[in-house]
């Protein structure tokens, strides 16, 4: 019995020894490029027939952090034709994601919505609520469905209201009738739009 106790003590001491060899983590995860994330969106309204383009940037530097971000106001001239170009960026990798969205046009669609009356063409309040409502798309995917990175707008009388843009990722889901409710949201921004 005495011998047994000795062995027990020996084992105990050894295990204690092992336990005290606590290891510190010495290897951090490799840095990753946040390729997924769009954290900067630039809207450029170029007036037809010359004039200074109006560019508005929405930036979300802390991504999934909790601090809110604000979008600046868009100010356009009344009764003017504009071409709107939308660009998406990833500031972490300094990457322009617009091309990727464009190349995968058959998986992406940009929907627009606004306060009724802001524009004389298209009329109405956009295709976020009703898919078939008018939006003047200039770009189409390989299935002849709109992508929405380039659109035309004619402003109405002086007024102000909301202007909302939703980029949807609809892999295998995009059809002539697929609405804003289909697929995952890549971008959903609402701006204050002023026409003067």
């Amino acid at each position: 019995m005495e011998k047994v106790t000795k062995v027990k003590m020996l084992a105990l001491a050894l295990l204690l020894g092992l336990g005290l060899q606590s290891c510190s983590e010495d290897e951090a995860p490799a840095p990753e490029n946040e390729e997924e994330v769009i954290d900067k969106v630039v809207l450029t309204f170029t007036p037809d027939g010359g004039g200074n383009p109006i560019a508005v940037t929405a930036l979300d530097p802390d991504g999934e952090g909790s601090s809110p971000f604000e979008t600046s106001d868009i100010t356009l001239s009344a009764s003017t034709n504009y071409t709107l170009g939308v660009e998406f960026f990833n500031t972490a990798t300094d990457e322009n994601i617009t091309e990727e969205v464009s190349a995968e046009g058959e998986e992406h669609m940009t929907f627009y919505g606004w306060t009724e009356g802001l524009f004389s063409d298209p009329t109405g309040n956009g295709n976020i609520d009703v898919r078939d409502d008018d939006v003047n798309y200039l770009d189409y995917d390989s299935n002849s469905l709109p992508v929405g990175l380039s659109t035309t707008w004619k402003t109405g009388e002086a007024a102000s209201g909301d202007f909302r843009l939703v980029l949807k990722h609809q892999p295998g889901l995009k059809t002539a009738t697929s609405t804003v409710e289909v697929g995952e949201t890549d971008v959903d921004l609402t701006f204050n739009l002023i026409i003067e």
Partner: protein
Amino acid sequence: MLNKSRSIVVIIVILISFSTLLGQNKNCDFFVEGTVYDLNTGEPLPYATVTIKDTQKGTVADEQGYFLIKNLCEEEFDLVISHVGYKTLIHHHDAYHEKPDIYLAAESEYLKGVTVEGQKNVGAYQTQTVEIVDKSVIENSVGTTLGKISSSLPGVSMISTGTNIAKPMIHGLYGNRILILNNGVRHAFQNWGKDHAPEIDLSVVDKITVVKGASSVRYGSEAMGGVILIESDQPELHEKLKGEVTLKGETNGKGYGGELSLSSGGHRLAANISGNYYRRGDMNSPDYNLTNSGMEEIGGKAMIRYHKERFDVNGIVSYVDQKAGIVKGSVVGNLEDLQNAMENEPPEGTTDFSYDINTPRQEGNHLLTKIQASQNFSDNLITGFYSYQLNKRKEFDIRRGTNNDIPSIDLELNTHQVEVNLMHEKIIGLEGNVGMQWIYQDNNNLEGTNTTPFVPNYQNTSFGFYMTESKSFENNSMFEFGLRYDYSFLSVLGRDFNQNIFSGDLELNNFSLNVGYQKDIENFSIKINAGTAWRPPNVAELYSFGKHQTSVITYGLLRYTLDENFFPVTENVLDPADKNIGAEKAYTFNTSLRYAIKNWKIDLNLFANYITDYIYEKPAGITETVRGAFPIYIYSRTDAIIPGINGRANVDFGNFGYSSIRFDYTYGQNLDDGSAFIDIPPFRLNFSYNKEIDDVWIFNKITSSIELEHVFRQNNAPRTITPQEFIDAENNNTDIFNGDFSIFDFKDAPKAYTLLNFDVLATIKSQFFIRFSVENIMNTDYRIYTDRIRYYADEPGVNFKASVNYRF
């Protein structure tokens, strides 16, 4: 780094030193007792002759098949069991088992007899409530999971993400509050979040035992709600080559697969191997296809055993690779997407049946190796083992472009474990175990996910030593107590959103305690057990940051501070000391009563868990991102109480079969604000009727059962705030929380439902086992409160399952 081989050497040295100091028992007071049965009918076989090989000793079993041979000078010997009309069986009786059940095969049959032995009572949970899953349920199971199979026991339920990903829940606790022991080894996996199930191949499992209630003293941290013990049968000595082939399939999901196992045992050496494959496509709910709900699993196991008198060495290698799809419509983006996904039925992206498993999906594999040695000396048994586990997990989300083929989570977890346990003989009237345990884990994110790691890299070292003792009294009662000390050290290195490195260390010391009492009075027996249990917070609870396979953004305890409006600010990564991070501690109390009279048997189990610094997720507001508005969840701490009651009554009608009624109730409350918790299983009632018929047509035995299960709606659920209410509040610029950050759910608890299931098992000459079962016979559409898929889709509809098992 550690010298792992050193620990193995230590154990071997210890064991060898023991074997040298063994003494022989010359008092000749060993004995053996057991029961002889007919293999075919399972009935006791009277008057078999039982002798000890190469001696004159022996006896004849009594009318009930029971035999007892006393005054043996050796502890180990070969038993020879014979009976007229039956094949003679030789069974090697060793010191590790007691009371063998011997099944003799008739001369006319092809099969040989078998012996079933219970392990000697290992103690340490004798006063705890223990439930065992019926072996026949595991053996011929088709396309199921550990979570699902153990939820057939009272007090046990499951938490799941669809049919493929399910983990067990005991007494309302799950995840890191439940310990899974795979052949004695802590099953090490990515055990955080609700959507990570243990990678366990059920085909290699022969026994599932559930210990309900805190068991930290014997098993270490995390054994708070209970322990699930998974065991594979040891290879038997003196056994000619034998094997089993099983083919199985099911109609829902068009699943198919099979298993093959072989075993053989000689005088000293025995081994077995087995392999398993199963594949299933999309399952069907009553109204629509559940697109991308398929799964595929391949696994195998090899065990080897060397046995010498009183000395035993055994090794296990097992591997499983699982691929599990998650219903396509269940992974969504911002609040509006969530609202749409919850409203749309069938879920978005629903297509026709397919075996394809696209995104979202999980791919996991798990390797377990273990070498164990044990040595018996007089009434002591010392056991030591070393085990190594490698767990790899990849999770694929729906992503843009080429990223769709890249996992968003890619983790590798290495685990080493060493344990030494001494089961000692009676010392001053106390019997029990003393032992120690050492575990080292290293978890790493693999490069190339193109997204910031959701959890950091970490290393975790822990060791503990324990003692559990019991004292039996003459009036059929027993007192049990246990003590344990644990040390744990967690070291973390991770990347924040800007790819800057952060680090953190957490050192914990803990004492656990357990006391229990058991008493038998005629038809009545009572077990009372009270204990403490603990666990260190897991890395996800401390460090998670962002969105992962859900529609909420989650911040771990160390990723936020609350501002004056109780809104989380996520500027810095905190140190564990900043928030005074400590262990979560539980105080649990369990009582179980058993009453047997005439043809009735009643079991009742009452429990209460009081948990301090209970970590749970709760909402903390809304954040605007480029992708729209997301709800923010934070990990928070509170004190909680989770009590409940469950039980079962069996009544035997003799020739008319038997019935059983089971019920299960669990309650949970946050003691800080009085609110409920999400994921407490609702009240459940089961009724089953079973009947056995012998000798019908070509079948020797047919066992059939019909089961009716009713699950009530969970009324003890948190308040509901739908995503639409959030969107409306945003649009109207109102504050939906209005200062109330108590827990809420996005959807009401699902309605009550009733399921009808049928099962029949037929045997031919104890060589063919044919099982046929139907689940959800009425094709009821229902949703399970503790299944995350309930927000988006129904559970599968009617399913016919069949399996054929052939033994040779």
